């Protein structure tokens, strides 16, 4: 199988490379790195790379409250997101065993076009799963086994990198395992369902009720979306893919090591 390797630097628009990383004071950790603050939550916290710069780790209990006008916040987020991308760019190899190109996904993620990136991800999954899936426009759960480890890892890496570890399958996997693999609880955590009344949750309507934004209140693990129209088996198989076998506990480790390695 042909392995494709796209050079990140070659594709990355130049001006993005030269973007200045925001200063620590400009945007607080809590503005988008904040974990879901729920009592008894077992979700481990995603860490932002640059927070380690000052040696500060985000902390659920004591996360700083920063009141910024939503407008400002959004632009700050966009900026910081790009900044994050830059910081990761050297590390993200667009590795593919299947000979699939991930540039479009990367570009969309890099541009903060979350909805388009999400769409591209699903398209890629179909492509990876095989001809049948491409034709069908959705992946049958048992086709997930045909997706090479390297490719799924690449997709996940891209999502994580550009979202500061907020989005991505491995993030979702961690959340899912933390809630004892209860889909209902998982959907609630990642915000794919919303409360309807005191007893019931209902699915969010696609695409309008989803949050195409990295900033809060978008919950961790909210993206990429996997269709619940046909139940949970596809997502189950993705999250159980060998690509993520080594990610248990790795997230924290990885994050920590990444954070410290940067400096």
């Amino acid at each position, binding site marked *: 199988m042909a392995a494709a390797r796209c050079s990140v630097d070659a594709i990355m628009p130049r001006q993005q490379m030269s973007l200045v990383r925001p200063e620590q004071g400009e945007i607080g950790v809590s503005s988008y790195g904040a974990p879901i603050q729920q009592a008894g939550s077992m979700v481990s916290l995603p860490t932002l790379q640059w927070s380690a710069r000052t040696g500060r780790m985000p902390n659920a209990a004591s996360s700083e409250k920063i009141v910024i006008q939503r407008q400002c916040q959004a632009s700050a987020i966009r900026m910081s997101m790009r900044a994050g991308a830059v910081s990761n760019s050297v590390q993200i190899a667009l590795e593919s065993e299947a000979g699939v190109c991930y540039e479009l996904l990367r570009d969309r993620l890099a541009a903060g076009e979350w909805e388009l990136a999400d769409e591209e991800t*699903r398209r890629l999954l179909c492509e990876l799963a095989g001809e049948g899936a491409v034709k069908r426009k959705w992946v049958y759960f048992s086709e997930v086994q045909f997706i090479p480890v390297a490719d799924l890892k690449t997709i996940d890496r891209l999502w994580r990198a550009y979202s500061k570890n907020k989005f991505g399958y491995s993030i979702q996997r961690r959340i899912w395992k933390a809630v004892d693999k209860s889909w209902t609880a998982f959907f609630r955590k990642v915000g794919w369902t919303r409360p309807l009344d005191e007893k019931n949750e209902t699915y969010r309507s696609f695409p309008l009720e989803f949050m195409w934004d990295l900033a809060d209140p978008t919950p961790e693990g909210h993206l990429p979306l996997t269709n619940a*129209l046909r139940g949970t088996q596809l997502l189950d198989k993705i999250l159980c893919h060998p690509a993520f076998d080594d990610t248990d506990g790795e997230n924290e480790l990885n994050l920590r090591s990444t954070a410290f390695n940067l400096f």
Partner: protein
Amino acid sequence: MAAAVASTVAAGASACFFSATQVGFWQNAGAHRFRVSWDVSSGSTHEGLRSNEADRVYRQGNNSSVGFSPAVSNSPRKSSLKVSSAVLGNGLFTQTKPDIRRIIPETRHGIPVVKLVYVVLEAQYQASLSAAVRSINKSKKDVRFEIVGYLVEELRDTDNYAMFCKDLEDANIFIGSLIFVEELAQKVKIALEKERDRLDAVLVFPSMPEVMRLNKLGTFAMSQLGQSKSAIAQLIRRKRKEEGGRFEETMLKLVRTIPKVLKYLPTDKAQDATRFLMSLQYWLGGSPDNLENLLVMISSSYVPSLKGKKLEFGEPVVFLDTGIWHPLAPQMFDDVKEYLNWYGARRDANDKLKNPNAPVVGLILQRSHIVTGDDGHYVAVVMELEARGTKVVPIFAGGLDFSMPVERFLYDPITRKPLVQSVVSLTGFALVGGPATQDHPRAVRALQKLDVPYIVALPLVFQTTEEWLKSTLGLHPIQVALQVALPELDGGLEPIVFSGRDSRTGKSHALHKRVEQLCTRAINWADLKRKSKAEKKLAVTVFSFPPDKGNVGTAAYLNVFSSIHSVLKELRSDGYNVNGLPENAEALIEEIIQDKEAKFSSPNLNIAYKMNVREYEHLTSYSKALEESWGKPPGNLNSDGQNLLIFGKQYGNIFIGVQPTFGYEGDPMRLLFAKSASPHHGFAAYYAFVEKIFGADAVLHFGTHGSLEFMPGKQVGMSDACYPDSLIGHIPNIYYYAANNPSEATIAKRRSYANTISYLTPPAENAGLYKGLKQLSELISSYQSLKDSGRGPQIVASIISTARQCNLDKDVSLPDEGAHLTSEERDLVVGKIYGKIMEIESRLLPCGLHVIGEPPSAMEAVATLVNIAALDRPEEGIFGLPGILAEAIGREIEEIYRSSDRGVLDDVELLKNINDTCRETISAFVSKTTNKKGQVVDVIEKLGALFMLGRKDPWQEILSKSKFRNADQEKLKTLFDFLAECLRLIVADNELGSLKQALEGKYVEPGPGGDPIRNPKVLPTGKNIHSLDPQSIPTMAALQSAKIVVDRLLERQKLENDGKYPETIALVLWGTDNIKTYGESLAQVLWMLGVKPVPDALGRVNKIEPVPLEELGRPRIDVVVNCSGVFRDLFINQMNLLDRAVKLVSELDEPLELNYVRKHAIEQAASLNISIREAATRIYSNASGSYSSNVNLAVENSSWNDEKQLQDMYVTRKSFAFNSDTPGAGMSERRDIFEAALATADATFQNLDSSEISLTDVSHYFDSDPTKLVENLRSDKKKPNAYIADTTTANAQVRTLGETVRLDARTKLLNPKWYEGMMSSGYEGVREIEKRLTNTMGWSATSGQVDNWVYEEANSTFIEDEAMQKRLLETNPNSFRKLVATFLEANGRGYWETSEENLEKLRQLYAEVEDRIEGVDRN
């Protein structure tokens, strides 16, 4: 020739999947009867269809939209929009708005715009039509389409309806499909009729005839079609002849081959008709392409502005009819072998799936969902099953008859053995007939042959996902009637809602947790077929209700432990592991209920398992939700303070467990008042243990009934948050249920997913006479022989004084002692007493308790047969025996009944003679078929032999010696043939057989529940009980019977109320009663109001019209209807009908003295400051998901302070009204009107539904009695008269409540035959005796209609009689203690005055038994 009404489609088929609604199609004045099968398919071919129009509306926040379906999108969206999903509170079933479907094209000069308005039931047409219109607007140069669509259900809303009418005003084309809800069909008809002439084209596909008649395509109209000599009609007729019974299938083929057929038609004449048929075909094709072609064809042919323009359109695309479909497969399969080959070669399948021993589940699908691509919910189920290592065979059909594809595709092509171990229908429809005319026998035959569990799951149709989630009713009532009640008649199990509906696109989507529940359960049922008997684990669950140790193992009419013992012995010999089963039932009781060593000193049941809190919380995901009612686990119930306790005992692979109680004993008053509560932790722990620790393959709930299925949640179609669903989890549930209780069995079936297996109630016997009553009977017979001898007066004096001793003075007015009586007066008194004695004597009572697997003995069957023989069955051409005998002596039986009721001595005597002769002949008949052991064997063979030998028929010998020797031989022959069959069925016990079948994962034959006397089809027992088609009642026959009862009731009330009609009657509607009688009591309410039901064109009862006052001949009586929670669950459509009837009557412009409903409503409207219509609220029940007033529980627990408290409880729990103006809102509290209405009641009334359940047998009759409550509410504090109708015998009676209580006490509690029968059942028997006394006291509490002598006599029977008292104590000390306590309580509450001596003795006894139970040694 009478016009044949051809249409047979039932109400509202379904939204997402109407394939093939079979329709009796167009009708006409001739006798032609056409049926066309439809396959309606629709849809977009890819998911996530988006429209800018929809988005626009959506962004305005006008719509609540459900479903989460990421898809390939066309445009990126940068901003994240917060959409509030405002749900409009219009109180209807759906809140979706038609505007979502409106597409307005950009107009350009010179291009004509065609406006299309459509009304459909199937929401998925929306996506398809929108796509079609968008495509036309984009690609066609010469035309633009404006389109707006309505879902039928939306037209209930007045604003929507107004918009619809307005939209029609400038529309060019109207399309309607599947408009079957009567009320809404009327609305469409009215609006459409106004515009029909102006419209360019009207296309109405299968719908109610009145709407179909409005079809218009040029010269084509529906009225022409059937009647003409058109070639199509001819062809259809010829086809029909050729194919006979398979006409539907033929029609389906015909529709599909129309293009070919059309060639042979004279095009010039039939052009318009041809276009109609083609339209139909496009419509059935359903895809955007087909619909686009349909619109182009119709508009270019009929819209004037398009005349002359050449618009191109393609031929209809035809799809495969029936076959196998798999989401991964490149094509559909027409052959099971091909499918299996493909399946076996799948590259994606893992080892588990490739294992030849993997379970196989058959799925039944609607073709339309597949061809339109609206198949997400199907895919979810297929994936879920395969992911769990289960193979699937998903078959589909576009026609109505799913039994055909079952036959073709679910059998191994080589071995011809069934390929599957369980079948799940995802269509929601009955197997044969879909929403139209069902053929249940054919379905049952097909399923019997396949012999696997058959599950019918439900997609949401009339509601969006959110609407269903929010609804306390759960599933839309019309869908319940169509897709829950009807499939049950096929033996369908587990109505699990597995898919939702997106309000925006109308598309189906999986409900992930529901899909998981459905699939796991289907696999577990399949596993029953795969596992060996030796490894199968069964959890037998017994009840303890009311919560008291003496009640462990309660079930109506059932000797539970003997039955369990007999079941387990049978299972052991069949190969199940039942190691350590004790020798007999008594030992079994000992081991489960009490410590072996100390009979009286063990306060606890045997503990099978202690579950610590951590384990409990881990196993029970919903435990947090229980904390609101019960605090942190473990709580006080089924707990030792540290752990949750599971009571029961394991024998090999069988666990016998005690279901925890509701928990009322924990905090009774709070819970009894609660609208609804939740199960307690102990309850949840029990089921968690059964499923996850014991690992049951199936649970067997033993007898009628436990608490599981009455736990809070939606009524039908439960969600993840409903307790019965969460509790039963993934375990297949088998439930032994009394055959005479179909209504509650249905609740168990729907809410706890039970396969209900019926058991026989104990054989009835005549109550007979005893003590003073016997003496009276002897005196009467000597009076008859000696009355003319001069000793008459003397004997009469004895009769009168004996009658007084027997407390008959309240039933018959007895002359004073020493009063001089003429011989006529003497005859009359004796006649009346005699009548009363006969009434007591002939009363049926179930003797003893039934043991599963023990058929009744011959003599036990006699009384049942006598009663079966007493009823006329005109529809079957069977005449009742009493009638035949009366006829033999030139009399009419009805007239004898009447005159006997009046006390005419000769006729009382004659009636006795007739009754005795009936018994004798039937005894003679039965004795011929009895073996040495006294059991009935080989009925048919023996009788057949008798007949063939030409010997005298057994009954002839008896009759030839009597005065009835001239009885009609022909009628007798017919009757006895029928009785022979009944006898065979009574003894053909299949209760154990069916249980074994269910445990082996086989299909259990379905059958109706009910009273074997009224409906012998209930027999033999061992059937999967179902109720009936709820829209079929009340029947016309029921209406006839209802009139008789209401008229007698009114007569009786006038007699006791100075000749005045009652202004208001407060009455109760029971589910079982209405099932058994096909809606008699429902019809009674209508007749009181002076309203009659009118069946619609399809024979469904959903219209009413007032009976003119002149015809009624009396005032319209106001009613306050208290529906039982079960009635509410089963018959919400009928509650709707009743509410409409009340509102209709309240708005009639009639004199107030002739319309009490209006009179009261006006008063109430004024005093409560509401509208008259609102004041006319009379149809009440519990809040959704809650049952009973709980007065019964309070009485059983002795946990109430005073009667006021009981009345408060009744009002608090029962004041939830159903409002037909806001049917989707479910039950809403209207206590103010409820009390105001009750305050006007002059009489209270209930029906007795069958011979074996009377007033004191169960607690629910007094539980629903408002007599004293009404007395309190009335401004004059007058006690209303209370009546009970008894239609269980051929001679229907309306008695006062007091009379009925006395009759009940005499025939049961005080009758040696009854209590000795109970005592012979041991432990359970004592409890039965205690229960009768407690229920009697319940009547004192709610109605005050129990005479002192009843308690007095009971005391002398059970307490004063030393021997009896000892027996009771020894057999079941806990129940005995309760008996003693109840006597003391009756006295304490002032219901029983007695001697201090009696009381002292009771107190002493209480202390003694208490000490013994608690193990205190006084010495």
